[in-house]
């Protein structure tokens, strides 16, 4: 093997310019893929982080059927204290869950005593909510970063439209599950910046105020929002939680609970999917680049070295060794191109990181781009290039190995 590799590398060095050009092409492809993956990955995780950490959470648990009717914010599909005990128990069994928050969601009327409009409200336990969606305070653009009983955080659009300021008194009127109407006065303690996605334009009140407005006999929770210690464990935690909660059945034998990851709850997931699809296409382009360039070089190599092939074949080299010789040449070229590409790609990603590039997303401004590419991604891209290099060399190498020495020696 060492000798075959030696011959392969020397043959690559023999045509230095061609080797360099081909390796450069592979390198450009690898750099492009790595930088693209790093930048889009960074943008994607930043945006996902913004959405999950400021309102959506990583996972949500509802009573079965709630998400299908979420636009109506139903007060009849809720989690009773008994159901909450089961959820609480299930959550505590999963160490990967960092925090959770319970919410009572409802729709109502918002009045500044002059005008009235609709509002969607979340009744939350402030301490639990802040642990679960830690970026919520950063969305409070005016007023206090906390929420006390009797306070209300209202969305910016509503504040502007109704000309309401921090410190103003407002009234929230809501219909409870029995159809009776109730109202309560609140003081505006903060103005919330909107974010994209469901719940991005909701207001917040204390959960006890929500119970009072809705005249609940017992606290009936609309949704439980979960935050994980490590976002990477999302799928495992989802499966684990589903496994536990799906065992709970009602009298009709149907599941009582439903669990959703953020992906099922946010339309941004489709954008994230599009980024993944774009990355896939970039990878396919890389494969095509490597395939065509290596195949071209190897076909040329076989054509130019026909007499050499004839000579080594005449002196008894077995076809398998001739095949290996050319495959190793393609492999070496692939490894060379991939290694340089990895190195240059990492340097560019490092430069992008120290350049502190910022970007805006919707109303979120100054988001810091932090491109990052993991060792697994580098390995995957390099392995793809190397495998494709070998595959591209196979046809020319096979042709060389099948060549009759007499024909090869006659080649001029």
């Amino acid at each position, binding site marked *: 093997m060492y*000798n075959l590799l030696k*011959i392969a590398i020397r043959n690559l060095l*023999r045509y230095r310019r061609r080797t360099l050009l081909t390796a450069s092409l592979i390198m450009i492809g690898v750099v492009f893929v790595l930088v693209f993956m790093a930048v889009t990955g960074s943008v994607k995780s930043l945006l996902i982080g913004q959405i999950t950490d400021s309102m959506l959470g990583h996972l949500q648990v509802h009573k079965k059927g709630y998400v299908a009717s979420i636009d109506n914010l139903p007060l009849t599909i809720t989690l009773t204290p008994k159901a909450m005990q089961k959820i609480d128990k299930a959550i505590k069994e999963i160490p990967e869950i960092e925090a959770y928050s319970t919410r009572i969601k409802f729709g109502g009327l918002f009045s500044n005593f002059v005008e009235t409009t609709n509002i969607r409200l979340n009744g939350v336990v402030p301490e639990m909510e802040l642990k679960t969606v830690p970026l919520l305070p950063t969305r409070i653009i005016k007023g206090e970063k906390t929420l006390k009983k009797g306070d209300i955080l209202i969305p910016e659009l509503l504040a502007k439209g109704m000309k309401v300021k921090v410190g103003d008194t407002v009234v929230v009127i809501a219909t409870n599950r029995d159809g009776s109407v109730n109202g309560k006065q609140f003081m505006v303690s903060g103005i919330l910046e909107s974010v994209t996605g469901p719940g991005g334009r909701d207001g917040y009140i204390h959960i006890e105020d929500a119970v009072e407005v809705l005249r609940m006999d017992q606290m009936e929770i609309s949704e439980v929002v979960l935050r994980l210690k490590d976002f990477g464990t999302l799928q495992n935690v989802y499966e684990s939680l589903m496994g536990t909660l799906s065992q709970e059945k009602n009298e009709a034998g149907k599941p009582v609970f439903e669990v959703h990851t953020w992906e099922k709850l946010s339309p941004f997931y489709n954008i994230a999917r599009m980024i993944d699809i774009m990355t896939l296409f970039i990878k396919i382009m890389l494969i095509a680049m490597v395939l065509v360039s290596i195949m071209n070089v190897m076909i040329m190599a076989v054509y130019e070295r026909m007499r*050499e092939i004839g000579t080594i074949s005449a*002196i008894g*080299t077995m076809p398998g060794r001739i095949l290996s010789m050319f495959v190793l040449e393609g492999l070496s070229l692939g490894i060379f191109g991939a290694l340089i590409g990895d190195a240059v790609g990492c340097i560019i990603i490092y430069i992008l990181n120290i350049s502190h590039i910022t970007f805006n997303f919707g109303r979120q401004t100054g988001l810091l781009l932090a491109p990052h590419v993991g060792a697994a991604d580098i390995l995957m891209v390099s392995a793809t290039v190397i495998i494709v290099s070998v595959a591209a060399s196979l046809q020319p190498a096979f042709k060389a190995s099948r060549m009759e020495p007499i024909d090869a*020696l006659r080649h001029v």
Partner: protein
Amino acid sequence: MGLISAHKIYKDYQVGEVSLRALNDLNFEIEPASFLSFVGPSGSGKTTLLNLIGCLDTPTEGGLTVAGTDVVSLDRKQRAAFRGRHMGFIFQDFNLIPVLTVYENIEYPLIMVQNVPPEERKQRILSLLESVEMTEQKDKYPDQISGGQKQRVAVARALVTEPELVLADEPTANLDSKTAYMIIGLMKEMQRKSGTTFIFSTHDQKIVGAAEIIYTLEDGTIVDRKDTGGNAHV
């Protein structure tokens, strides 16, 4: 039985729709340790015959036995293995591998074909380098040495596997007369030392005399066989 035995050999080539007969009813026997030459004008069938003996090609018809093996019945892989075990080749254009040094070119068949252990390899190569007077050039690449030197290396490469038979197709065609005599002299000397059978083709009458046996071919047929003793010019 001789080292090579040919019986009613025919070789036809198809050129378009026309069939050309390159060799016509050849019958001969070659003894081991011969120093033998096929001579004849261009197109007489010398190279075709050497290609058949060297298992690089197969006859259209007839029987051919080399070193006790019916080579006509061998498939591609078996022929390659047979060549590696029993034969050495010297080409008109030297055909050294350009990316390997003189030493590595000679070493190539020992590693790639015969898998000889390193110590034995080294011993054989150094001894041959000395015999062909190329020890000082052992680290040079083919493009750094002269044509005569390249052919010396080719002789060493052909002999390093200790074959029973070395085939040389026009080995002196690309050399000046002085170097050509030197190469033929070297081949003869190596034949004496190793007892290997050397068969070469040439149309150069001046070096033919070095051969002990001369077969003359014309239009694919052996028209003459001479035993000369091989004392001329060398």
